[in-house]
């Protein structure tokens, strides 16, 4: 069976709907569940169990996923345009094509599960509770941006939702994820499921030395850690067959069990991650998860993305595997929405994104003091008398110092 086909649909008409035909508005009151087939979306390594081959999904949930994914898509396209209009400067890595990965992980996760990722983090920030205006505002370098405009594209964080952010250094997020997994284990109550940590990284990052170090620690100490490789088949301009001796990334953890997931299928991602969370959260140790995905844009804004891969490959992926087209098809097949209703919704989201971008543009640049804030716990205030910045770093501990009166005690 083709992955993602609708198996059955259990519909219950809400009382509020009465006898009216479902319209866009009425659809909101129309609650129903559907079961989708995701067989063929998984491959496992060193595992006795596997994710389910069917996924049950309510209309609300599928709609929510679609809404999030389409917002991601529109936001990234808007970023592209704003970059070309020179309103966004610097380094900027877009996520379009990979939306199902962040969306599916989010759907499987509790808010208290920890999440850390690479620089390709605009959309994880959205999934983890950010608004379009705070993401785009950060890219504009404005004070209402996600990180007060101080970081830019690679720097989004949301402490309230255990989002540890983007990381500019390839691979650096992974050992940090291991530490947060340890913290999750440490603070869990006996007999209860642990919260898990996921560290997302690319196929290129997968061979950074520090990832092996983290993998060993997590396996040695049985940490609830998910190593999530977003395999979009390229690390900048180098394809996986040229930069990695192993291309079955889900097997890379050797002893660590692995799971490969069709990362263009948001339902499979959700089910696979549910399975991984269940496995790791129950004290079975870490898991390697490989998401088979694709980025439509180039690596960053300076990369047209067409010199090391051909246009046919991009077009083929877009036309046969697009994660958004997939969700839309699920919505229609389950009779959750008609094609027209989806179009209306898309129109609304496009408008919302535009509004959010306008809102972000109204935000001012950060005030100058921000430059000296948040370097140390205590802010470094500019000195009076014209010196811009105090030329010290650390004060001696006078109480413990034997230099105080020039002699040792």
């Amino acid at each position: 069976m083709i992955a993602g086909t609708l198996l059955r649909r259990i519909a219950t008409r809400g009382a509020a709907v009465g006898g009216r035909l479902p319209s866009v508005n009425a659809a909101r009151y129309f609650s129903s569940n559907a079961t989708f087939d995701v067989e063929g979306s998984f491959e496992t390594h060193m595992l006795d169990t596997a994710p389910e081959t069917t996924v049950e999904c309510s209309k609300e949930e599928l709609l929510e996923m679609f809404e999030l994914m389409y917002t991601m898509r529109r936001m990234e396209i808007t970023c592209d345009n704003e970059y070309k209009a020179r309103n966004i400067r610097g380094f900027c890595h877009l996520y379009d094509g990979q939306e199902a990965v962040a969306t599916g992980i989010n759907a499987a996760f509790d808010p208290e599960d920890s999440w850390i990722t690479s620089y390709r983090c605009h959309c994880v920030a959205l999934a983890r509770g950010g608004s379009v205006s705070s993401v785009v505002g950060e890219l504009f370098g404005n004070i209402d941006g996600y990180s007060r405009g101080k970081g830019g594209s690679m720097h989004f964080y949301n402490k309230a939702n255990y989002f540890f952010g983007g990381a500019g250094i390839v691979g650096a997020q992974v050992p940090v994820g291991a530490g947060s997994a340890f913290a999750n284990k440490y603070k869990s109550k006996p007999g209860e499921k642990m919260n898990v940590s996921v560290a997302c990284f690319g196929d290129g990052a997968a061979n950074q030395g520090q990832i092996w170090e983290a993998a060993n620690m997590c396996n040695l100490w049985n940490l609830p850690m998910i190593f999530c490789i977003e395999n979009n088949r390229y690390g900048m301009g180098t394809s996986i067959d040229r930069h990695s001796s192993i291309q079955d990334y889900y097997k890379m953890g050797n002893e660590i069990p692995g799971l490969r997931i069709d990362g263009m299928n948001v339902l499979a991602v959700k089910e696979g991650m549910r399975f991984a969370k269940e496995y790791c959260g129950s004290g079975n140790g870490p898991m390697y998860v490989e998401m088979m995905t694709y980025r439509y844009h180039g690596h960053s804004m300076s990369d047209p993305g067409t010199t090391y891969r051909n246009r046919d490959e991009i077009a083929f992926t877009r036309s046969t595997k697009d994660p958004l087209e997939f969700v839309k098809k699920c919505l229609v097949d389950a009779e959750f929405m008609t094609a027209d209703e989806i179009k209306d919704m898309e129109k609304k989201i496009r408008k919302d994104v535009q509004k959010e971008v306008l809102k972000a543009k109204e935000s001012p640049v950060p005030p100058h003091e921000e430059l000296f804030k948040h370097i140390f716990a205590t802010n470094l205030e500019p000195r009076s008398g014209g010196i811009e910045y105090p030329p010290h770093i650390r004060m001696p501990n006078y109480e413990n110092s034997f230099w105080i009166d020039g002699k040792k005690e």
Partner: protein
Amino acid sequence: MMLSSLRIAERRLPILGQQVVRRAFHQTVQRNSAGAAAATADETREMNLFTAVNQAMDIALASDPTAIIFGEDVAFGGVFRCTQGLAEKYGKDRVFNTPLSENGIAGFAIGHASVGGTAIGEIQFADYIFPAFDQIVNEMAKFRYRSGNQWNCGNVVLRAPCGAVGHGGHYHSQSPEAYLAHTPGLVVVMPRSPKTAKGLLLSSIRSPDPVVFLEPKALYRTAVEPVPTGDYELPLGQAEVMRSGSDVTIVGWGGHLKVLEEACDMAHGLHGISCELIDLQTILPWDVDTVVESVQKTGKLVVSHEAPLTCGFGAEVVATLQEHCFLSLEAPIQRICGLDTPFPLVFEKYYIPNALKNLDAITNVMDYGR
């Protein structure tokens, strides 16, 4: 000049192994002076900095069959096109992409170089040299010393684009020369222009000590000047007096010299101050004598660099200079540097030690005590 600055080091640090270092540099200087002489006879062509760097590597590959180039995406020319065309010309077994493994790249370079190969590695941005720091500091820089001169990896050059570009943010802007310069055994070079880049890179590739070669990436396309098309070397460990003057000595390196030239122009145009501008070129080991000589003449010194102030290499220059020029100094030495903040995104223009800040320092030392 190089030798006498090492003599200073020797006097202060009478340790074993200093002898070795001196011999190594002695050789470089000799060959380099011959190379530099040959260069003057060369034809020149207008080119930008990345083309000059590309030419240097082209010459290295052509003249040295053991030379290889490797790094992330270098087979396609690299992010800044520095290795453009070299894989096609010399083959994929000599110019090849590595996985995303900086520590691996640095260690791999040591291995190839230690058996006589010439290893030209690229770290895609200087900001990513930190994952390779262990190999550079603990393995590369000390191989000769810790093996009692049995092994060395002098044939290593690690190139890395550094410095501000206007919008690079935290991880595409840093200048890590001071971290590296804290490492005896390592040579740290930063050229200021296409012509110096080519000559210094060729010297670095042929130097008997491992070199980290930091290229000011803002200049890759924007700096254009006539560059000799042939093979030439510029001496390592030697500063260049770019402009001679009588009132104030200004010391800098790398792309930042553009800013300092501007400051010198303003100082002269507005106040008639005559600045002597020195490009250190090699950060480690640095040319103490040239700077001392200049400060003994002018009595005033401004040191300026893009990296943060605290523990920047400027601090080293200042400490050494006050020791050698104490009685010649007519004003406190000024350091005009990047701020002690992480490299900022939206605040880059405040962070940068721009021409006005430098002009301020120049007029301050001129007015001191008046």
